[in-house]
């Protein structure tokens, strides 16, 4: 497998930010009650992560080492506020549903983690791909969790009814504890499949 291909594909499974690195759990629990919010969150994170990786990679030779984290933070925070403003202007209803969670992308460890671990050492094009790959890995898990939660919780998928109307909806699936259990199960299944185990 070529290097660029690996950069994109690795985070989808073998090095998934949520299930393997266990980062970004907060938003994975919070915005996955239904597909619509989960997808907007995925798009928002993809935009922020690819742009922040690219920008930080472009600056990597000039950022003074002592203040690199603060600079990374400023770039990320600016991009997040930018995304939030655009959502408020063009997708007002969804932005109210996402409430604080778009703003909380700032504290999403995936964004800062990729800047520190990848963008600082690699050229812009590869950093862009790395950002995209990780965003897709994050999105894949969010979409799986949101699908399970929306179908179990409300009997719908992306707002369309998939279960008969008699289905009452499982309250646990719509609450954070339900998301915790589902994310836990996904982590367990995936690690069993790819045979990734923590050393004791």
């Amino acid at each position, binding site marked *: 497998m070529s290097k660029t291909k690996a950069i994109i594909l690795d985070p989808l499974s073998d090095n998934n930010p949520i299930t393997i690195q266990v980062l970004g759990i907060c938003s994975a629990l*919070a915005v996955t009650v239904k597909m619509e919010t989960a997808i907007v969150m995925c798009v928002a994170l993809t935009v922020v992560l690819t742009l922040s990786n690219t920008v930080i990679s472009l600056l990597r030779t*000039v*950022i*003074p080492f*002592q*203040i690199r984290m*603060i*600079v990374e933070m*400023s*770039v990320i*925070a*600016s991009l997040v*506020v*930018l995304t939030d*403003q*655009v959502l*408020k*202007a*063009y997708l*007002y*209803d969804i932005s*109210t*549903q996402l*409430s*604080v*969670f778009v703003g909380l992308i700032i504290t999403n460890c995936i964004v800062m983690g990729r800047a520190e671990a990848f963008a600082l050492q690699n050229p812009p094009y590869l950093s862009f791909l790395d950002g995209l790959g990780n965003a897709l890995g994050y999105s894949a898990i969010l979409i799986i969790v949101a699908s399970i939660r929306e179908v179990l919780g409300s009997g*719908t998928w992306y*707002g369309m009814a998939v279960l008969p109307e008699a289905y009452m909806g499982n309250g646990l699936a719509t*609450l*954070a504890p339900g998301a915790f259990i589902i994310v836990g199960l996904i982590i367990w299944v995936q690690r069993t499949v790819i045979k990734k185990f923590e050393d004791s």
Partner: protein
Amino acid sequence: MPKDDRNVILFAAIVCVVCSLVLSATAAALKTRQDDNAELDRRMNVLQAFGIEVKDEKGRKLLSKEEVDEYFTVNISEVVLKADSGEVMPNVTSEGLTRTEIKEKSKLPLYLWSENDEIVKYAFPISGRGLWSTVHGYLALDQDLATVVGVTFYKHGETPGLGAECSEPWFMNQFGGKKLWADGELLPFEVVKNGVPSKYPDGCDYCVDGITAATITSNGIMKFIRSDMKAYDQYFATIRGS
């Protein structure tokens, strides 16, 4: 100062300036659109309090901006009351109120819903402290100035999943039909912790269920609905009397 340090400070300054320029440019460019969205959302909440269906059960909008504006020109008119005397202030509209006047509630906007030249419903803004933020909403009363037509809470910064449940349909839908006034006096509106039946097994027509794990938000809502209703009641009393 060593050259390295100077570079660090210079770099930090450049980053700050560039970031703030980008952000202020975006904010300025998008402001009109955002304000329009916020105003439309506010108007839809007034309509919702008045008992108009503005969203379906999945939260999709049922009305276009034009339809909303039409309600505001055809059915809804507006007066502003003086808080200390409860009198209508001539030639004042809610758009002319300053932030302080709204915040301190020294002047009170009131929306009137007319059908065939008769006022049939009244709505007014309600707001007060929750746990983290000020909760904003609207409350509409029927012609008898006692029965609640509807309540909405739309702007707040409460904890998602806990206090933020106040703007969920299950909470807001409880208010329709509740009584805030009977036999010449205001009723002690109550948001009941653990649910109305736990305290009033025989039912209670001025009570709604509280929000589990959000007692401070629930109590905040109870307090500001009581005090806002009291503030407007000076004016309502004159209408009831006439």
